[in-house]
């Protein structure tokens, strides 16, 4: 029986479906496994790194392995990452920001307080501002809640979104594209009028009302059905890419994909 984590991995893979040759970056176990799954199935043009500096045609499995197990087919170190992947738009990244607002603006920098003295200092903007203006991005949120999907704007805008108030005249925003938000409850996109957030599929057993209740802004119900369960073929590939079962530790209690099966062993 598939787990919710595995269903999310399959949903991530769907978000990365492409016929282009671009770098697929998934930060964190679920996004990374999803990109690998997309590459191994419907989107062979995707390019991935070993998490360090080399491009690999066979995604490196998660967790402990021998350093030299990866088979480099190419080279994409940080020292040329902006030249090759980010500033050319040849990339799609999935990240997990601390806050997201209705414009798709994200925060990875700090919470509360002031710029000089934040209440909680986090990582810093990292590459979010550049990623957001130059290439498509998606998000994975493991705990769908109003703490993440905030009312109003995020505390610090680390990556740009569809916020007309923050557009500068003459600025080129053509590279800004937020594709999908995959959470533990649903899949969302920004396909509503004025790039409003829509729920496009609910995970098995989840109601729209619950998603709305756990979101700090209004959502559009554009649900076309349940998020697809992973197929047997997909599950076999996921197992190969995650031989140590790191995916089982991402979501609390590792629930089954379908809530109807809650209580049964995953």
């Amino acid at each position, binding site marked *: 029986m598939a787990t919710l984590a595995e269903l999310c991995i399959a949903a991530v893979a769907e978000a990365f479906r492409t016929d282009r040759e671009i770098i697929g970056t998934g930060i964190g176990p679920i996004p990374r496994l999803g990109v690998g799954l997309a590459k191994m199935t419907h989107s062979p043009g995707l390019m991935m790194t070993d998490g360090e*500096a080399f491009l690999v045609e066979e995604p490196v499995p998660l967790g402990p392995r021998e350093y030299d197990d990866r088979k480099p087919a190419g080279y994409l170190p940080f020292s040329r990452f902006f030249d090759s992947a980010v500033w050319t738009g040849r990339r799609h990244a999935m990240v997990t920001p601390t806050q997201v607002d209705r414009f798709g*603006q994200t925060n990875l920098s700090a919470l509360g307080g002031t710029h000089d003295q934040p209440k909680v200092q986090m990582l810093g903007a990292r590459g979010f501002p550049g990623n957001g203006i130059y290439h498509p991005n998606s998000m994975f949120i493991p705990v769908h809640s109003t703490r993440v999907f905030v009312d109003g704007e995020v505390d610090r805008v680390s990556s740009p979104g569809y916020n007309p108030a923050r557009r500068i005249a003459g600025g080129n925003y053509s590279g800004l594209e937020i594709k999908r938000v995959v959470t533990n409850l649903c899949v969302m996109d920004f396909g509503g009028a004025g790039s409003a957030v829509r729920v496009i599929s609910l995970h098995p057993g989840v109601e729209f009302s619950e998603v709305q209740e756990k979101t700090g802004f209004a959502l559009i119900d554009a649900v076309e059905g349940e998020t697809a369960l992973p197929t047997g073929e997909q599950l076999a590939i996921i197992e190969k890419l995650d031989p140590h079962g790191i995916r089982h530790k991402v979501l609390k209690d590792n629930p089954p994909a379908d809530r109807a099966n809650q209580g049964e062993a995953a």
Partner: protein
Amino acid sequence: MTLDKRLTPAEIVGRLRSGMTLGIGGWGPRRKPMALVREILRSDLTDLTIVSYGGPDVGMLCAAGKVKKLVFAFVSLDAIPLEPWFRKSREAGQIEVLELDEGMFQWGLKAAAFGLPFLPTRVGLGTDLIELGRLKTVQSPYDDGETLVAMPALKLDASIVHFNRCDHRGNVQALGPDTYYDEWFAKAADECFASCEELVPAMEEAHMADAKANIVERCFITGVTKAKGGAHPTSMPPHYGPDMKALKSYAGAAKEPGNWAEVADQFTGNDEATYLASVGGEEAVINIPLAIY
């Protein structure tokens, strides 16, 4: 002129001044010139503006009160994502910051290297970085008329980097899978000081076959010093990985006792030999396995 650029770590730090802008090479807990950072921690230098893809270098200098201002895009220990000593300084409002995107950051180093006042970019548009960093925009003078962010040059008074090999003339070799922006830290600075795992008399005799690892030419290298194990507790591929045990202990100390003065000795030592001995010695350091990402 002399092309003998060999200096001791103390001589290098002796050439730095309080109040200066200092770039530090490497990336997070990778390839950091920690032997030189420790030498700075043992010195009276203060009031520094630090420009760094931050790791424990930033955390330690913040904790020790050496930092007036930090120019950064992130500060992280990789497996320990948030750098606890840096967070303490920020949450106490002790340092000024210029927060940048990591691509803008290298763009600023490149502007400095080329003697330009700024380089244009789209990065920063639609984010808080522009207003908080008081960054300005420019308009393309061509028909497109595009409005772009003018990323100011990150001009460095000095920089410190850690290489795998140097010779006495400042010929360097950077091995390992990724050398990050060390080349640009060297070129953006008035003076760049390099520590190294191996100091050889003549690179062309010792490591001719690896000449392509010379990522920055010797005219950009002011001084060299040998510091085997000098990136510890950060990684220095292909020689050694990060010392996660030491990094965990360092991160833990931010909580308990939470006071740098009480633990400074443990993380800097009275001198480098004492420090390396305290973490098991050179041999132990160079045998730390490489990180798997």
